[in-house]
């Protein structure tokens, strides 16, 4: 039984109790506790159940590597599953729930899986795929879905905000242990800009817990001084509770800082993602202790020896009253020492090494502890708690020599450097056989923009283990003197991958490698036997090292077992790839500020507010919001659109056209340049006149269209589509900068500078005349002409162009005057029955006139010739962008799909995107199609369905009736007609 000791615990504050709940039960811990230490303090050792067999599990570690103690934390909009209790600070009111245990932690129906474990071997999931389909659908999938899985998904939107922080430094140190502090101090003294991040709330790392003497001071005091020196420096930024999540190209590092996850007050952003550019990265990330593989090593009460020490010394919590220690190295003896000093019992130390005579072993023996050399654990006894161990010879097959009663086991299989940050960008590892670890190979670092290594490791992350080694390595890494400390002699480790060495299948089937995924020694051996020899394949097949902990505890042990089974060396098998993030990162943190209203930029025209107050129903057009229609009270959107179309055709409509691109193209070579960009001739356009033009890419496909106005001898104003403004501006600059850089042309994007208002309908001229200030008569301003002048006292540029077939003017005015002019026009237009109209009315009116729309009639595979726009393609020009592409034979096949109008026989509208059905089926048994609908509307003007579409040989087939698909219904019949449905002679605009 675990419990809180009467004294001790350097991180907790016994004067500040903290109330929390676990599975609904009210419990109490102290400020400074983690959820795991607080649960242990309350005697709550079982904290969850395993993924596959639902075995009861307790905490095995005290840090981020913890595979078992995963919790659901919080409720409602702050609910989060799969949180590691070992790194979750306790706060007042925290509510935690265990996972994977229905109906309760104590009684779990999934436990039956454990009894059936021989039917759930490695690759079980994959093997089910080979069964007949119905078996998967009705047996395996429902079973797996019910039984497996970690925490439940949140059901509410995350209540929290997150933020980024861009930061720059010469040296980024990740990890605030004594190695990181030494490195940061050296970089600071060298005059560098330094950032040091530490994932825990306090700096100092293991040295603060384990103690040592540095520069003649106790480790804790040395750490305090170092932190003070760093905090004092202007050039150093210290960030606690901030984890180095990932290292990316060219010194880019993502670090994740916890801002409110450790406290009850949740105001402000919850996490801050540091996006750091570092000249170099020092990974002082320490090392993780490895478990040992013996039968029953997952029973609650079996813990890493270092974790036992952490709970004792940092939190004043004892994992058990009688702790057996099993080890292959000297470090676990420190745990024995700590237990004894806390007044707890150590019935035995089982050391697999045949003979050891280092100082710490001698010390422990002198304290009267029984140390059994060459021994290991044959098996652990107990179900929900350790009750004892059977002792055997490590060199044997598990024959039991002795039984020892105990309620906890502290194990140490040696230490693995945390090499993740070194490896994320390609740093290579070497196998250090003497230390039994993969450690960074300094000769093969990850390289940066200059081709040199930009990540280094310091301290235990380099493979250094003793305090002296750690300090020396950190100083050498950064350049500087190492703090002084005593050299303590330690006996070498003896690698042990299976305990005992000759364990048979029965024992191997109870030796856990990966606790979280329930992968055992027997599973890895089976995977090897079934041919999954690559470590990456074995990982996927067995799920070893997958899920939230990514095998921080299990990888090395697993690949050693794989190597043994394959009769290869450990470095021959190698490790799986280390990928960021180091621990799971909140999705919200990665999104940063891009949530809710700032998910995307929202672009507003100068008339946006007017439209908002006049009931606009908005539609997104790129990042813009444009009014789709202006519904009146009780009116449907369709009714509103219909009214807007009719009113514009009969009286007067106004449209906010400000979103259209407006590009000024100017210079001695501007005409020549535009002749290259447009398919038709722009250099011959006379000043004062406008011309409709098409732009194609080099494939020949139509990419944009719009009206071009010639302003003066050297100046043109090119209108683009709304979506095309930035794209076409970029397109022009690209050609000018990268291909025709000696041409004298400037392009200035004036889209944001001007508001543009379309005044459309039979009364359009009258309302402009009422405002007054310039001659807007047909004589002074004929169709496709423009003029500068004033309207109602405002300087304007007036284009007489039409996208509706009506008498129409577009007025460009500096953006700051847009809203005022709009209001003046609305007011003046009241006498002429003016109404605003939205984008849907715009679309219908252009379709009634057979005008194409980029993105409707075009989709990146359509050339202008497909749309009957041959008239807008100059035959005189030797070259324009897309001309060569259009010369290809594909575009000259007689059965190209070409633009036509479509009229249903019954007057209904065709479905958007419907296909024209052809004769028979193709080689794949699919219906042959001969065309498709590109635009379809109910025309309020004609009171019938009208559509445009691309149909094979369409223009040659006028009058023919063809059939179109309709989802879930019989096909519709439609007649091929001219795409110009309304006013084919253009009389309405010509007034």
């Amino acid at each position, binding site marked *: 039984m675990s419990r809180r000791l009467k004294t001790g615990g350097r991180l907790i504050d016994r004067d500040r109790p903290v109330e929390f709940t676990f599975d609904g039960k009210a419990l109490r811990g102290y400020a400074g506790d983690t959820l795991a230490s607080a649960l242990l303090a309350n005697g709550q050792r079982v904290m969850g159940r395993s993924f596959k067999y639902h075995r009861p599990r307790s905490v095995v570690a005290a840090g981020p590597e913890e595979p078992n103690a995963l919790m659901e934390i919080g409720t409602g909009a702050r609910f989060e599953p799969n949180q590691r209790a070992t790194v979750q600070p306790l706060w007042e009111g925290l509510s935690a729930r265990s996972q994977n245990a229905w109906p309760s932690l104590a009684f779990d129906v999934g436990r039956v899986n454990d009894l059936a474990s021989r039917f759930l071997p490695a690759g079980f999931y994959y093997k089910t795929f080979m069964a007949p389909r119905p078996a998967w659908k009705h047996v395996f999938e429902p079973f797996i879905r019910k039984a497996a899985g970690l925490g439940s998904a949140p059901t509410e939107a995350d209540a929290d905000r997150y*933020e*980024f922080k861009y930061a720059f430094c010469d040296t980024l140190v990740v990890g605030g242990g004594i190695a990181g502090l030494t490195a940061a101090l050296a970089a600071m003294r060298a005059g560098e800009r330094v950032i040091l991040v530490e994932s825990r709330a306090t700096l100092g790392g293991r040295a603060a817990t384990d103690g040592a003497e540095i520069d003649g001071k106790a480790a804790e005091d040395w750490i305090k001084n170092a932190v003070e020196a760093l905090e004092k420096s202007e050039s150093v930024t210290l960030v606690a509770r901030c984890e180095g999540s990932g290292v990316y190209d060219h010194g880019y590092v993502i670090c994740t800082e916890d801002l409110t996850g450790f406290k009850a007050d949740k105001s402000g952003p919850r996490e801050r993602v540091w996006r750091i550019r570092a000249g170099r990265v020092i990974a002082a990330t320490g090392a993780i202790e490895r478990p040992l593989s013996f039968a029953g090593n997952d029973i609650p009460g079996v813990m890493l020896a270092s974790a036992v020490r952490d709970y004792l010394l940092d939190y004043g919590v004892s994992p058990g009253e009688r702790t057996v220690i099993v080890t292959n190295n000297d470090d676990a003896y420190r745990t024995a020492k700590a237990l004894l000093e806390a007044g707890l019992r150590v019935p035995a130390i089982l050391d697999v090494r045949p003979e050891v005579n280092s100082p710490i072993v001698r010390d422990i023996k002198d304290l009267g502890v029984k140390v059994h050399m060459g021994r290991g654990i044959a098996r652990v006894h107990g179900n929900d708690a350790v009750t004892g161990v059977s002792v055997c010879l490590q060199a044997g097959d598990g024959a039991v020599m002795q039984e020892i009663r105990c309620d906890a086991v502290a194990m140490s299989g040696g230490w693995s450097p945390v090499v993740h940050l070194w490896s994320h960008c390609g740093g290579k590892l070497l196998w250090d056989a003497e230390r039994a670890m993969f450690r960074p190979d300094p000769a093969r670092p990850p390289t940066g923009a200059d081709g040199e290594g930009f990540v280094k490791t310091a301290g235990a992350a380099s493979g250094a283990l003793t305090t002296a080694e750690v300090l020396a390595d950190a100083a050498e890494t950064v350049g500087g003197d190492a703090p002084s400390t005593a050299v303590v002699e330690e006996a070498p480790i003896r690698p042990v991958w299976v305990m005992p060495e000759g364990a048979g299948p029965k024992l191997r089937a109870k030796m856990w490698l990966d606790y979280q995924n329930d992968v055992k020694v027997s599973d890895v051996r089976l995977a090897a036997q079934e041919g999954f020899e690559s470590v990456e394949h074995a990982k996927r097949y067995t799920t070893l090292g997958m899920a939230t902990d990514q095998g921080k505890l299990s990888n090395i042990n697993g690949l050693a077992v794989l190597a043994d089974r394959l009769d290869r060396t450990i470095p021959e098998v190698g490790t799986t790839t280390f990928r960021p993030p180091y621990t799971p990162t909140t999705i919200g943190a990665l999104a940063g*500020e891009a949530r809710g209203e700032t998910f995307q*930029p929202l672009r507003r025209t100068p008339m946006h507010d007017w439209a908002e107050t006049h009931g606009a129903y908005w539609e997104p057009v790129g990042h813009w919001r444009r009014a789709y229609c202006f519904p009146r009270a009780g009116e449907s959107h369709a009714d509103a659109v219909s009214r807007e179309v009719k009113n514009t055709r009969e009286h007067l409509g106004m449209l906010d056209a400000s979103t259209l691109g407006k590009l000024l193209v100017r210079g001695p070579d501007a005409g020549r340049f535009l002749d290259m960009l447009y398919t038709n001739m722009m250099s011959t356009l006379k000043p004062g006149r406008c011309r409709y033009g098409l732009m194609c890419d080099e494939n020949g496909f139509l990419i944009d269209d719009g009206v071009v106005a010639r302003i003066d001898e050297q100046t043109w104003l090119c209108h683009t589509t709304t979506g095309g403004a930035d794209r076409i501006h970029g397109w022009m600059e690209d050609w000018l900068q990268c291909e025709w850089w000696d041409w004298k042309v400037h392009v200035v994007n004036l889209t944001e500078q001007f508001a543009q208002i379309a005044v459309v309908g039979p009364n359009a001229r009258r309302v402009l005349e009422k405002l007054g200030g310039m001659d807007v008569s047909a004589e002074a301003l004929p169709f496709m002409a423009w003029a500068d002048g004033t309207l109602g006292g405002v300087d304007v540029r007036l284009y007489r162009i039409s996208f509706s077939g009506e008498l129409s003017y577009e007025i460009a005015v500096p953006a*700051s005057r847009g809203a005022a002019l709009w209001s003046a026009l609305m007011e003046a237009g009241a006498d002429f029955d003016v109404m605003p109209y939205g984008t849907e009315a715009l679309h219908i009116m252009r379709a009634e006139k057979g005008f194409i729309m980029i993105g409707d009639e075009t989709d990146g595979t359509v050339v202008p010739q497909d749309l009957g726009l041959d008239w807008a393609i100059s035959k005189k020009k030797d070259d324009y962008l897309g001309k060569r592409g259009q010369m290809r034979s594909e575009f000259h096949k007689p059965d190209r799909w070409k633009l036509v109008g479509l009229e249903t026989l019954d007057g209904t509208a065709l479905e958007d995107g419907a296909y024209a059905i052809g004769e028979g089926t193709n080689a794949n048994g699919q219906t042959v199609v001969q065309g498709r609908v590109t635009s379809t509307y109910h025309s309020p003007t004609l009171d019938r369905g009208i559509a445009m579409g691309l149909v094979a040989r369409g223009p040659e087939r006028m009058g023919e009736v063809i059939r179109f698909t309709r989802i879930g219904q019989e096909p519709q019949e439609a007649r091929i007609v001219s795409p110009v449905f309304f006013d084919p002679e253009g009389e309405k605009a010509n007034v």
Partner: protein
Amino acid sequence: MSDISIEALPPVGMIALRGEMGSLGRAVEAVTDCAPPEQRMSTRSGDVTVMWMAPDEMLIVCDHGAAGALAQKLTAQLSDVFATVVEVSDARQVFDLTGADVEALLSKLMPVDFDRLGATEVRRTRMAQVPAALWRHSGGYHVMCFRSVAGYAMRLMEDARPVGG
């Protein structure tokens, strides 16, 4: 709480200049008395600031009412070379940020190394997802973005105010 003030300024005069930098510099000096700015920097004389925007582009920032006349003078001054002068006073929104540690706010939104930002530098960059520019003034920073995204930019900066000092 943060004492940073974020103010959307009323429209200021702006003139875009394109052309060969030598010619632009001479014309600007003659008309505004501002020295030609060095790469990425700005110069100032009276109410007029001249900003280096690109190797063939400057931006003049002045009083909103003065832009038209200034643009005409520059056009005349540059009439015999290949250059473009366009008034763009309504295309952008300028914000004024003052108070303690404005950089802490802006560094949440812009990938800018403020330690390396020159005193007169005009840093063109992005603010979250939109193009933006910023430069120092005696009490803080000016931030500039396009007019249509001014609301988005304001909301970003409001949300990024440092919490708890």
